[in-house]
């Protein structure tokens, strides 16, 4: 143990052991790759707006999904909450002509209600959250489609929001940057505070590391889990609302891609699926990497399908390097002991 020097301040080893390092390297590499292929258009405002718009949508959902994964749980129901909340909003405001705030509150409420339901079942039973949320995903999908056809008689409902609401939730600034990007930054700040600065964050890490010990240490584990599920329901519903505000129409289908995309962003961002490790900066970097690959492919004039190969490879690379980093980090920790 005496040979082990305790380093203070900056050290390359410490940097390599930070959970974000891998995702930062990944982001820079991917950005340079597409910048060299995409040229000035990709580097300019059109390029930035195109991938930031994608990043904002999936990023808002990836944040709470990441927190859930840090605490060792999954939420696949986000894929059906997005259209469910959009449909709720369009139905209340577009079909029944109620004021926008009523529709927005109701839409967000739908998301939180599904989240509460998920959390309740996960904490009350030993059924894995993966299965519970697949169940609620199917159920919410069925309810959305069923009610849409029952009330409106169609699978899509249009809604033209008033100027103020549209400006707040669904405007393109300069005709390019969706206002959702700023909401995403707001959500990032809130979740950064929650996970990295408040005691709630410590609880989330503790639950992911060892749920039993966390409970014994006096952490209200059930309440934390339920509120995490409600957060992901809320954020998914928010994206649903923003989509309706932007595109002025709600479809019953079309949220499915968020399920795996949000998980991929989180995993590329260095969150361990087994819980207990991860960071908000990592999740944001992972989301940006995902969005750059997703959109950069169009600027690079490559076959769009190659993008999906790159994302798959990136994902495997990310998890494998995380695996390595974690072993490194664990080794360093045990040595210090």
């Amino acid at each position, binding site marked *: 143990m005496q040979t082990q020097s305790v380093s203070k301040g900056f050290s390359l080893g410490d940097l390599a052991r930070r959970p974000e390092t891998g995702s930062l390297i990944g982001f820079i590499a991917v950005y340079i790759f597409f910048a060299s292929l995409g040229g000035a258009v990709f580097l300019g405002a059109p390029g930035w707006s195109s991938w930031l718009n994608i990043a904002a949508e999936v990023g808002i959902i990836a944040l709470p999904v990441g927190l859930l994964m840090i605490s060792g749980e999954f939420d696949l129901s986000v894929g059906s909450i997005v259209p469910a909340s959009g449909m709720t909003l369009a139905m209340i405001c577009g079909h029944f002509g109620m004021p926008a705030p009523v529709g927005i509150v109701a839409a967000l409420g739908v998301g939180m209600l599904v989240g509460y339901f998920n959390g309740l*079942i996960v904490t009350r*039973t*030993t*059924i*894995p959250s*993966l*299965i*519970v949320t*697949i*169940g*609620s*995903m*199917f*159920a*919410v*999908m*069925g*309810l959305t*489609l*069923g009610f*849409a*056809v*029952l009330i409106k008689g169609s699978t899509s409902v249009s809604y033209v929001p008033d100027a103020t609401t549209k400006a707040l939730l669904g405007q393109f600034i300069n005709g390019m940057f969706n206002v959702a990007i700023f909401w995403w930054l707001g959500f990032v700040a809130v979740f950064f505070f929650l996970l990295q600065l408040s005691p709630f964050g410590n609880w989330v890490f503790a639950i992911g590391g060892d749920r039993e010990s966390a409970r014994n240490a006096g952490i209200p584990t059930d309440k934390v889990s339920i509120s995490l599920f409600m957060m992901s329901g809320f954020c998914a519903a928010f994206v649903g609302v923003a989509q309706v505000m932007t595109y002025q129409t709600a479809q019953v289908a079309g949220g*499915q891609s968020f399920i*795996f995309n949000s*998980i*991929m962003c989180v*995993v590329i961002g260095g969150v361990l*699926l*087994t819980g207990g490790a991860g960071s908000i900066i990592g999740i944001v970097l992972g989301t940006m990497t995902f969005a750059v690959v997703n959109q950069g492919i169009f600027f690079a004039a490559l*076959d769009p*399908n*190659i*993008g*999906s*190969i*790159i*994302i*798959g*490879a990136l*994902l*495997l690379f990310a*998890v*494998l390097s*995380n*695996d390595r980093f*974690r072993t490194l980090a664990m080794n360093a920790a045990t040595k210090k002991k």
Partner: protein
Amino acid sequence: MIGNLLRLPAAASIISLFGVLCFYVVFGGVDLEKLGGAASWVNYAARIGIVALPVGLLMIAGEIDISIGAMIPAGAMTTAIITGHYELPMIFGILGALTVGVIVGLINGILAVRTTVPSLIITLGTLVGMQGVVLAGSKLLTGSASVPIQAPEWAKTLFGQLLFGGSHQVIIIWWVLFAILFWFILHKSIYGNWIFAIGGDRVSARNSGIPVDKMKVLLFVLTSTSAAFVGMCHATLFNSAQVSGGMNDIFNIIVSVVVGGVLLTGGFGSITGIFIGTITFAIVNKGIDFTAIDRNWSNLIIGMTLLMAVAMNEHFRKLALSMVSKKKTKVA
């Protein structure tokens, strides 16, 4: 007697099937005779059932594979490109599809046993990656996302025929054969014991001399090869292969297996359960067309069936476990 029945791993799936049928009869006014004779749900059950069997084994061993969603189109596409586009003999198309399955299965399996990364994430990576490979590959080689294929007569008879001149597909027979084969593997052979042991406690299984890693890799290979097989059968039957499709199959297959009483955390499940779970899912999904209920509610019914089935499973498993420990105390 009833207690013994309830403690079977398949109990919840039998009750679910019965419940769904009752629901459809009472609220949907379904004609059971008509439903029983219909081909739509049996064909669908065979399609997802062939993949659900090895996925179930994998879940009993404590792992999961979602790359199947890309492997069904991958199998179809490989067959169509080799036999349809390059006009090589059918046998090469079949072998090609199965080889793609084996390769992807090996990648999944080796990554899963060599690293501590959960198999859900590994197979998510191969899922997305394979989707890209299939799409880009077919665009590159054939210039189109849909490839026609004209299979020879013998291949049609074996993989793509309609039975008895009706609308039942020959794939149903393959499904039943696979079910019997997997039943022997899981419940009658030593490998079955190994699979349960691995899912129950991986470390203890390894310590007692079970080749855990080999078994797991083998199960991953079985799973993606079965998915490629289903894809190949479909290409043969429909005379064409599309790159898309298959994403819904992921959830549908997992739901079938879970309704069938397999525990996601491993160590618990049965082939009978998976078989009945698949039938239940297929009846909910396709049988709704025979009811007065609007088709749009089918996903709601699937979600409710899944949640109720897992809740029942959990309850019955507790019953089963409490029974075992009671017996032990009596002996002591």
